[in-house]
């Protein structure tokens, strides 16, 4: 057992660090550092920079452009990205649809879709949830009827993150209603420009437009866009969810956030001193920091065992619960740290303007972040569903 970095690892770390330093566009960095929302263009620009270097689809098999990195190198890379406060990688193409295509797709499909995901030419979104199926995903009703060499798709998808930016959507659709609900589900790729696709925003309690309704009305989809066999969609869905959950905990970002909060406690005034003099608050901060250490090393253990034995399984549910609990605890501590200054609401326009902010510089995003992060224990399979998964798959119940 050895948890320290080798010479080579340290060399790799400094290579990553200097690459980011030299290539991370300053205008994007400035927005990130000041809590100004980044645009689609910003995200694509940054992701393309990584693509060009060959550092985007790092978890893919090398034949499709993956990095071939060790668990340690991936760990270092993610930490450096978070440390430099770069925009989160949008996972729908690279971490979800990509692995499905290289695992279940035909050679033809791999050639057609993978390069554009790897090179960031196409933005993907995820068509899983429906108004009537949240945690009970398999009850989905969006129907795809085979007509000749096409599917005719009808139904509604919801909670579709960043669908407003997307070129393509990967969907779970029902191709057969005769058997039990897990059967008869298929995995279909749909061009968002197809006639009959309509996107409507859902505004969340933090005031942001992140998620959408996607209406599919008699959308014609060529049958070569089906991934895997007709009816194999549920196993593909579970495979994808395990991938989704593994990265969902966001540990590297949390490490940065907690260090920042500790720094904030030394700057925020309290009585004649600073917030750091409030031992009750500091205890809570220290507890979260220790929980974060547990979560980080649990993730590392899991990744190490995945790299020895293949795809992530139910362990990813443990990481999802642990990571999202921490995301919520930390977002709550930020709110507590601010006191009254957590309350003023700043619109996106306010944030972009040059007018002096109300309260401390970092205050504007704190409450929205807390409100927005209520989602993390709900999405990707609610944390209750994750417990069902662990009970069944790990405890054998």
């Amino acid at each position, binding site marked *: *057992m*050895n*948890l*320290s*970095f*080798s010479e080579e*690892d340290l060399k790799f770390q400094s290579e990553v660090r200097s690459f980011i330093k030299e290539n991370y566009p300053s205008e994007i960095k400035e927005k990130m550092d000041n809590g100004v929302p980044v645009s689609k263009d910003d995200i694509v620009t940054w992701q393309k920079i990584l693509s060009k270097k060959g550092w985007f689809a790092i978890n893919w098999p090398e034949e499709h452009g993956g990095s071939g990195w060790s*668990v*340690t190198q991936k*760990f270092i890379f993610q930490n450096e990205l978070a440390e430099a406060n770069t925009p989160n990688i949008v996972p729908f193409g690279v971490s979800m649809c990509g692995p499905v295509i290289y695992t279940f797709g035909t050679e033809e499909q791999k050639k057609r879709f993978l390069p554009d995901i790897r090179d960031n030419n196409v933005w993907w979104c995820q068509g899983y949830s429906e108004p009537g199926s949240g945690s009970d995903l398999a009850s989905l009703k969006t129907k795809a009827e085979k007509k000749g060499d096409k599917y005719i798709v009808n139904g509604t998808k919801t909670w579709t993150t960043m669908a407003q930016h997307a070129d393509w959507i990967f969907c779970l659709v029902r191709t057969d209603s005769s058997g039990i609900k897990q059967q008869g589900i298929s995995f279909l790729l749909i061009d968002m420009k197809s006639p009959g696709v309509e996107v409507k925003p859902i505004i969340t309690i933090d005031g942001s437009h992140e998620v959408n309704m996607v209406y599919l009305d008699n959308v014609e989809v060529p049958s070569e866009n089906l991934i895997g066999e007709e009816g194999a969609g549920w196993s593909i869905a579970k495979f994808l969810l395990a991938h989704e959950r593994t990265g969902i905990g966001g540990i590297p970002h949390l490490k940065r956030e907690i260090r920042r909060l500790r720094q904030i406690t030394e700057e925020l005034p309290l009585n004649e001193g600073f917030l750091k003099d409030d031992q009750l608050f*500091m*205890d809570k901060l*220290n*507890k979260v920091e*220790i*929980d974060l*250490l*547990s*979560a*980080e*090393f*649990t993730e*590392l*253990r899991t990744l*190490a*065992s995945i790299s020895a034995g293949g795809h992530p399984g139910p362990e990813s549910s*443990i990481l999802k*619960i*642990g990571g999202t609990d921490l995301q919520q605890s930390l977002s709550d501590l930020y709110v507590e740290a601010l006191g009254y200054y957590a309350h003023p609401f700043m619109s996106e326009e306010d944030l972009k303007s040059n007018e002096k902010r109300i309260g401390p510089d970092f205050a504007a995003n704190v409450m929205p972040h807390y409100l927005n992060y209520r989602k993390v224990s709900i999405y990707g399979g609610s944390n*209750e569903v994750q*417990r*069902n998964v*662990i*009970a069944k798959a*790990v*405890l054998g*119940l």
Partner: protein
Amino acid sequence: MDFLISDEQKQLQDLIHQFIQKDYPFDVREKLVKTEEGFSKDFWKTFSQFGLLAMPFSEEDGGFNGGPVDIMIILEAFGTGLIVEPYIPNIVLSGNLVSKLGSKDQKDAILPNLLNGDMQLAFAFSEPQSRFDLNDVTTSAEKDGDGYKLNGYKCVVMNGPAADKLIVSARTAGSQLDENGISLFIVDRETKGVSLRDYSNVDGSKASELTLEDVVLTNDALLGKQDKAFSTIEEVVNLATLAISAEAIGIMQKMNELTLEYTKTREQFGQALSQFQALQHRMVDTFMVHEQTKSLLLMAAAKMNDKSEDAVKSISALKYQVGNAAKLIGEEAIQLHGGMGVTEEMSIGHYFKRLTTIRTIFGNADYHLKKYSSL
């Protein structure tokens, strides 16, 4: 960076698990703890033959040069079998003190006997007012002609009843809380002025209250340099904290397994308890807490192995988390066993008692959270 243990370490782990399975079932342990000695000298000899007693010592001292990871592996395995033989007081605490500070004569007199299982030791460091603060020492050692005279009181000395010799921390200079001015003395239990009141703890282990009244010692009883023992005491207790955390994590794993098994067999309202979602989610939570705490154990062991600068801080993070996890997992296991959980008859209650005393030993969760904050 990897989490794999070596083949040798795996063999060591297997050896202990096989021993538990074959020779140390729960009823054997129960008979042992009810004897006057409270553990088996024969099993202690077996551990010597296994090489466990020599593990942490250098080759010069007759040992195998084992590190924190080896200690972790031994104690985690011990935890699953609820092994009561006093490994931590003898080997991790006392043996290490002698090995780190002893003169050649002191080592020759003690280590061979300790390692072959013929001598028992105890480390008397806690006082009624000191709680977990190792620097809080009121027991005094005054210069007395050619030696020292000790007076004072030590409480809940682990393995006191069996100990042939005690290592006692005493103040030779400074005031009550000073780190400087603390010295260690090797004291034969038969020495005039030494009195031990021996008793059992709730977890089946044995301990003593130690009174020192004008105990006259010669200079060769001093272990290490006068006034300068504190940093070594701290170092050895840190290792013991890792060790007892590993034991706790072995116990937690076993308690989770026993609870899962029990809920699968016990039926209420026409179905197994394990079918109730309310209970399933609680077992998932205790499963996760065990895994997460084990991650901290591995982290802390590796950092100690590497002598990393935040090793001590990571030990406090670990023991804090062990304190919380032990409370949650212990209490949940009893609750899910229902009435059977509070009977002497089932092993679960005995695991619970040991896990509960471990919450306190070498510092409880609050103590280590404070220490973590201060580092």
